[in-house]
């Protein structure tokens, strides 16, 4: 078995990640071995271009920040599949396997054993792909639908797996499910088999520090741009990069509790152009440090004027409050920019009158700030 990242030989407490992105579903519509499905809605599920890219983005981010994690990165096992028609997808050189259900089970067992090797290890699990929910969230593997009479054999249950992983000794465990949680009318009349990747038989009860986030609220969808990184994956990376950071005794850090409490705000900032306000379902137990941020994080700022008519003719500036630094300027609003966290002054000027000049002070606080100048 080849890992996408392997520094397990260094030993000691490490972070071990299992990252799965299922976009190519070989037995579903448009797949390489399409099969007639009996479960009424299985046949309507399409190939996806976002999940493999989302998984690669998460894996690449972990490698980039491998030394900033609370425990250094030890391993990444990456499983991805892309639709047959998706010629542009690439793992960017990362070693990856197909996320068949057998491979997922095998990868889970290996990853779990690595996590179990030290109590101070950090376990990170990420899945992106199709999901359906009744009682539990069923996450679909690449070969879902191989046995049309019981397609659920190609899936596993997220919540039951999460509870099962409590058997692992690793004190900090992070589980992320980036998949839909809708229920279909066919599922109302039957109950899909709940298949966890691990059964909890009381070798362990809840770990010391647990972070579990589902990208969608119950009954809702997790979304992403075509051939792009999903909104949840983008939000997660933003959270880790500083959107969930706080200044603790002079150091910027990201705690699991802050990730849980801010993730919905961050995802709405990421996909604000969508008509639907995606909501995450986050649960955290006993917040703890996840990673450190090297410097004050950048904070996205969105500046606009009220009334709307003022936007077209406003001359805007944004500068640090009481600190040296040249103001940044833009003609016309709205204006989106990123600045290091701190205190600022926003100004709107109108050379031809018609609106009132306005100045306002702003705290650029993670994850983002919206500034509306009353002109």
């Amino acid at each position, binding site marked *: 078995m080849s890992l996408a990242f392997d520094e397990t030989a260094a030993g000691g407490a490490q972070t071990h990640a299992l990252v799965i992105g299922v976009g190519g579903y070989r037995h579903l519509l448009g797949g390489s071995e399409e099969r007639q499905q009996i479960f009424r809605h299985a046949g309507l599920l399409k190939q996806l271009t976002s999940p493999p890219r989302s998984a690669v983005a998460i894996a690449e981010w972990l490698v980039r920040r491998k030394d900033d994690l609370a425990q250094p990165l030890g391993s990444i096992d990456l499983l991805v599949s892309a639709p047959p028609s998706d010629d542009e997808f690439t793992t960017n050189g990362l070693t990856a396997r197909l996320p068949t259900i057998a491979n997922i089970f095998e990868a889970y067992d290996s990853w779990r054993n690595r996590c179990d090797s030290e109590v101070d290890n950090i376990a990170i699990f990420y899945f992106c792909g199709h999901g359906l929910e009744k009682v539990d969230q069923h996450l679909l593997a690449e070969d879902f639908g191989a046995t049309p009479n019981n397609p659920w054999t190609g899936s596993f249950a997220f919540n*039951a797996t999460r509870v099962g992983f409590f058997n692992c000794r690793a004190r900090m465990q992070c589980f992320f499910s980036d998949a839909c949680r809708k229920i279909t009318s066919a599922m109302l009349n039957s109950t899909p088999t709940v298949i966890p990747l691990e059964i909890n038989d009381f070798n362990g009860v809840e770990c010391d520090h647990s972070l579990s986030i589902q990208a969608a609220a119950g009954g809702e969808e997790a979304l992403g741009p075509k051939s792009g990184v999903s909104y949840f994956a983008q939000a997660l990376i933003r959270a880790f990069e500083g959107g969930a950071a706080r200044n603790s005794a002079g150091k910027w850090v990201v705690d699991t509790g*802050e990730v849980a409490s801010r993730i919905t705000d961050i995802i709405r900032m990421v996909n604000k152009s969508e008509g639907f306000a995606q909501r995450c379902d986050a649960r955290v137990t006993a917040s703890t440090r996840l990673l450190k941020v090297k410097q004050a994080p950048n904070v996205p700022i969105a500046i606009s004027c009220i009334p709307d008519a003022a936007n077209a003719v406003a001359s805007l500036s944004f500068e640090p409050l009481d600190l040296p630094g040249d103001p940044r300027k833009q003609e016309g609003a709205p204006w989106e920019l990123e600045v290091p966290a701190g205190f600022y002054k926003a100004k709107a000027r109108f050379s031809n009158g018609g609106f009132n000049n306005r100045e306002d002070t702003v705290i650029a*606080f993670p994850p983002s700030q919206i500034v509306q100048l009353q002109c």
Partner: protein
Amino acid sequence: MSGFTLGRSGAEVRFILDAYGNRAGEMPINVEVFDQELQDVYGEWRLLSEDRRIEVEPGVYGVRISTAAGPVYEKPVRVGGDGGTVTVPIHEISPHEDHEWAYFSQPIDPPSGDLLSDEVNEGLWLRRWERVIRDGEAVEWQVMPKALPDEWTVSRNEDGVTYSMGGARRGERITLLQVGGEKVPWKFVALPPTQDAMVLVRPTAAPHGFGHPVDVVVSSDDWWMETLLSLLQRGDLSQASRMDDAGHFAEQMLYGKVSNPSRAAVGGYYLLRVRDFGRLHDWANNLANWNDWMPDGAIIHAWQLLEQARSARGSQAKSTFAPACDRLLEALRRGVPLYTEGLRLLRDGLTMFANRKEDTERQARAQRALAMVNAYAAAADWSAKVTTFTGARPDEPTAASVTGIPDPYDSCSFVFDVPPRFLLDRGILNPGMRLVSEIEGIPATATVQDDGLIRLEETAVEPERGKSFRSLGALQKALTGKSFQAWDAWKVAGDNQSIGERVQAYLK
């Protein structure tokens, strides 16, 4: 108006917190002060009505004021020099004074702009169910004969209806409020068993087709407890821990299990979540034993036992598993937990015992219990603080959509408007009946049609004449721009009684 002062005498800034009314003063708020590196200088949860002096040296600071819903104010401020006053318009978080408690006490979306008078909400009704206890055993669910007890007060607005449950404590039993409509899926919401609780029923902010179309926001008047529960539900443990050494606060909540068991349950859930098992003492056991009507105490004690089993070894561990399983099974026998956190812990605990082969008898019982809990899990709204699920009966949760008006209707109350078709069925209105407007400045007449629609006959508002409307509210809106209190503005021709007086029985 209350507030706080930042700085020292001679160099200070006064913050004035401008809220709607007296109730706002009872709400906890979090005041945080940061330096220019955004490092904490000060942070405290306190009542909005309490005045404070926060001493800092002259300089520039960031001030953030938060409620259970999140930040409501964030600004830099310069302390020193001429000082000054800052007025914080906290009342802006709510569209009405009546709704302010809801926006303060939990994270809910701003109003959607949809109205209870919209067609999708036509015929929206509610009723109450209670878990009947006989000989100390919970036996069945019953619909209460009156949806709204006399001591409840109602405040109706198009964007939401508020129910205030003042009066006698409702007793030691689980009460569920059920809401539904002709196009609104029926759902249940657990009511806190405290003396003064509030409910806000309003159109949801979610786009159509996503989620349930109606929000039912529930809160007791125990604002500290509600704040802690909200922070717990949205995972903001760092804020929760700042609630005045929250461990101690939560511990005291659990200690008060005799006088306020639901508050004690929230304290217990918090201590479980932060894994502060030492502060549970034996109180979770007592909470479960002394409140045999409430599942939540049994669930909390079960998880305390599970943690003890985890920490123990060998036979001592094994001997703790059985009582933990028994507690979970007992919890389900008592009914549904008050709080969503309890439902989640019940499900997770039973999942583990359903897999435990060492005790096959308990494994079988846990598997049967898990099947029942999974039905609730499939129908639950996991984002709600209190247990919320869809279904026709409390013991028949289902994710499938059940809609309509119950028959018989007697135990129900309409939330905002009474459908004319309903009144036709009961002979309150009759086909062909002529209705006369008493809207000031807008005389009009209308006729009730066979199909329940109301046809506008005579009016000075030209474009609307001759049109048919699905309700008096819709007709009134076409004439005046508002549907509010439409029933009171119309009467049957020749009758002294307004239609509002005729339909009052169905709004109570």
